[in-house]
């Protein structure tokens, strides 16, 4: 019944739809259209990606050689903190919300998102949060210098920049929760007739599960940072042993959020890949049902493994063993996904346009990240590797080669739909190969640095770490600059180019390809009928 209501509402909107929309800036400020909002999410995320990337290059420049060259240790700590927070909350998460906004209504045959006004609000919360984070660099004492994990008591020592980061996290959390409510409602209530849950496109499945994860853990993070806030200013002692609190409790709370967060980022990335690989293999996805179960079990297990980030805090040995076993278990559903993707490619009829290249790059590199994750899950080995560059390498394989590559695959895959133009294939391929080689140059050596004993989050290091750090810095700079090429390709596609057909990819399937490119203002005014 609810679904019916929403449809009526959609039709109503459509009747008044065209003609008297505000233009210029006001169009974007007041828009309730899922495509406009998706676009804003994506541009916001790209802008944040540039800011966070610039910070990464400052970090890598300082680490080019031992000694302090360009920045002070305090500033270095601020850079690693902001780089982490901005990339996770400002770049990667909004990018996938952008995809969700654009694609979910088009994939399920709906006119728009369920709560169009709330959608506007959840986007417009982001810029203030982004500004709070970046501006915190300029207040006295600078930004938080704690790393993105914000561990107390260090975070209690920080200046006002810490409070700004806390408020930014609050705002981002609100935005994520609203976005999630919207996504869940849209998927559950606005599917075209005939689209049962087990016929839901994979991207929608991953987002449905992700949205539940977000609703479950964002309040936990908000609670944790609020406790830091009151410890800082209102005399509480949640994390202060002298007042009866425990600093390690923060870590438990933080990672109870933090581990599902990894899958909040990874699952939508899996979703995109599950569309791109079948399209370019011209073959349906292998094991749809097991994929769905794998997603659900990954999400569930992600709630019970958090303390594998804390093997050296001194928890009881039974705890260490339990968290080790539970963590290793995640490898099973993740393995299933990888096998399914490979089986989808097997005996297909493949072509290798840019989206497919990024998807294969994702598969290859994400699996490396998965394997190093397995190494790290082993408590006694992890004790050697915890807080070293090995961990830095591991999560960049998962976050950059995983989530970011998948976002690139998605952009190239759907850009023709979004803009009505084909992108420049040659430049797209250049972007892929430059990114692929430079990414590995930047991050592969970090495994060796970590194994040999280089801690993370240090501005200066012992001499034996010099060589690999130099390679890593070269790689990082090339990787960073390659992303300008991406910007150029996207701008060029928006401004013109070969006209894209409704379905520009031979093997693509799904309702989004039944719409014209670019699609009309309201995606589906009449729900399509699924056979």
């Amino acid at each position: 019944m609810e679904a019916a209501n929403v449809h009526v509402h959609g039709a109503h909107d459509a009747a008044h739809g065209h003609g008297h929309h505000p233009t210029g800036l006001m169009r974007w400020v007041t828009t309730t259209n899922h495509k406009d909002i998706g676009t804003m999410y994506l541009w916001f995320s790209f802008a944040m990606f540039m800011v966070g990337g610039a910070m990464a290059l400052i970090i890598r420049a300082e680490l080019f050689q031992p000694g302090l060259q360009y920045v002070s240790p305090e500033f270095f700590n601020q850079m690693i903190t902001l780089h982490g927070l901005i990339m996770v909350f400002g770049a990667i998460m909004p990018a996938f919300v952008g995809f969700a906004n654009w694609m979910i209504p088009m994939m399920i045959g709906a006119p728009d998102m369920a709560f169009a006004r709330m959608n506007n609000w959840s986007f417009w919360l982001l810029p203030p949060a982004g500004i709070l984070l970046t501006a915190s660099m300029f207040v006295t004492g600078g930004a938080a210098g704690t790393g993105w994990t914000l561990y107390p008591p260090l975070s209690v020592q920080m200046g006002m920049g810490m409070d700004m980061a806390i408020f930014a996290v609050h705002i981002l959390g609100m935005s994520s929760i609203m976005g999630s409510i919207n996504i869940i409602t849209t998927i559950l209530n606005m599917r075209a007739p005939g689209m049962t849950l087990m016929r839901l496109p994979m991207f929608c499945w991953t987002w449905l599960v992700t949205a539940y994860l977000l609703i479950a853990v964002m309040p936990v993070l908000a609670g944790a940072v609020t406790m830091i806030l009151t410890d800082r200013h209102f005399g509480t002692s949640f994390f202060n042993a002298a007042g009866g609190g425990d600093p390690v409790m923060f870590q438990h709370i933080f990672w109870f959020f933090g581990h599902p967060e990894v899958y909040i980022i990874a699952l939508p990335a899996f979703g995109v890949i599950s569309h791109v690989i079948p399209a370019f293999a011209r073959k349906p996805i292998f094991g749809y049902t097991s994929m769905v179960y794998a997603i659900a079990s990954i999400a569930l297990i992600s709630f019970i493994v958090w303390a594998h980030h804390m093997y050296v805090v001194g928890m009881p040995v039974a705890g260490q063993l339990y968290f080790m076993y539970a963590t290793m278990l995640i490898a099973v559903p993740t393995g299933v996904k990888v096998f399914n993707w490979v089986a989808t490619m097997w005996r297909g009829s493949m072509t290798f346009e840019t989206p497919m290249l990024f998807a294969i790059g994702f598969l290859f590199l994400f699996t490396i990240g998965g394997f190093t994750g397995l190494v790290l899950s082993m408590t006694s080995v992890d004790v050697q590797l915890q807080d070293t560059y090995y961990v830095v390498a591991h999560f960049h394989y998962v976050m950059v080669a995983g989530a970011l590559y998948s976002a690139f695959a998605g952009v190239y895959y759907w850009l023709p739909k979004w803009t009505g133009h084909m992108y420049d294939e040659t430049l797209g391929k250049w972007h892929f190969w430059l990114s692929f080689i430079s990414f590995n140059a930047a991050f592969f050596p970090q495994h060796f640095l970590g194994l040999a004993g280089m801690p993370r989050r240090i501005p200066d290091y012992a001499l034996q770490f010099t060589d690999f750090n130099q390679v890593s810095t070269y790689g990082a700079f090339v990787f960073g600059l390659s992303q300008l090429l991406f910007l150029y390709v996207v701008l060029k596609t928006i401004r013109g180019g070969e006209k894209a057909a409704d379905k520009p990819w031979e093997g693509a399937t799904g309702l989004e390809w039944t719409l014209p490119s670019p699609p009309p203002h309201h995606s589906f005014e009449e729900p399509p009928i699924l056979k």
Partner: protein
Amino acid sequence: MTSKASSMAGLAGLGLSLYSGLSQAAWELTFQKPATRLGQEIFSLHDWMMVIITIIFVGVFGVMFYSVYAHRKSRGHKAAQFHENTLVEIVWTVVPLVILILMVIPVTGTVLAMRDTSNPDLTIKTTGYQWKWGYDYIKGEGEGIRFIATLATPPEQINGKAPKGEHYLLETDRHLVVPVGKKIRLLTTANDVIHAWWVPALAVKQDAIPGFVRDTWFKVEQEGIYRGQCAELCGKDHGYMPIVVEAVSAEKYSKWVEEQKKLMAAAADDPNKTWTLDELKSRGEKVYAANCVACHQATGKGVPGTFPALDGSKVVMGPKDVQIGTVLNGRPGTAMAAFGKQLSDVEIAAVVTYTRNAWGNKAADMAQPGEIKAARK
């Protein structure tokens, strides 16, 4: 790519010490050579795991790349349309599970061994301070020895004004001396924020948490010097609080303990002595250099916005008891730690006197150790 790389190299060439580090080329690919039995076990566990991983990796991506090669449209391959196979799916769920179980059995053994801190020969407590390590030998031979170990690398090397030494950043003024072949139980705690005591070759890493005591252990097999660092971000100088462990034979260890005992007796301050202003000032300058410069700076000007200046500070120039209280008890919730437990009465009296009379500060008075003793109550 090469042109970008070379311009980047040019940029770096502007750095002060281009040559530094290059002399010590080291492309280490794996763990440092372990010096404990547990370290060896972890080392071989890791190797064993890498073998399994490599086999799986080659298997999966062998299939994928074969497919990329053979099943491409440009070679005229027609797409099959199969999309499930229950048997295969069950197999690739169960087989990894079995492999994981095989992997986890030996790991469980090392985890249990790692956490068994019972029956130590020697117990040492280490305390993490921003940014140095304190050591107390609390049980076993050497009981009562205590000292603080700080970074020995001179600032000129860090700032590129002098060539970097061989053990750049991994050298301390005092070494943690331990006997080989003895089980050392290490208690860790911290005074201000969380630190982590880590020496890779000993395969030991343990967080040091303020207000709590954790423990770990190691037994060094060979004499030698082993270097490590703080592994948990602990503020500004996190990268500058190294750990140096010197493992020596039992005889050498006993000799070292004797020496330390003598040195400590000689260095002990006479509690009843009344100090002169000059004595206190010169002693205080040393205490200040060892404990306060990292934040308040040698100039006493601090770091604006983060660490206040002591030069011209109202607290330093104001009533003595307030200042003594600040140093003894710190300021909770800020980086200003309580120095009461770290420093003796004489040292606190000295540093208070010194700061009252250094730079532009001209209080021209002093604090005697007796006043500190009284203030502690």
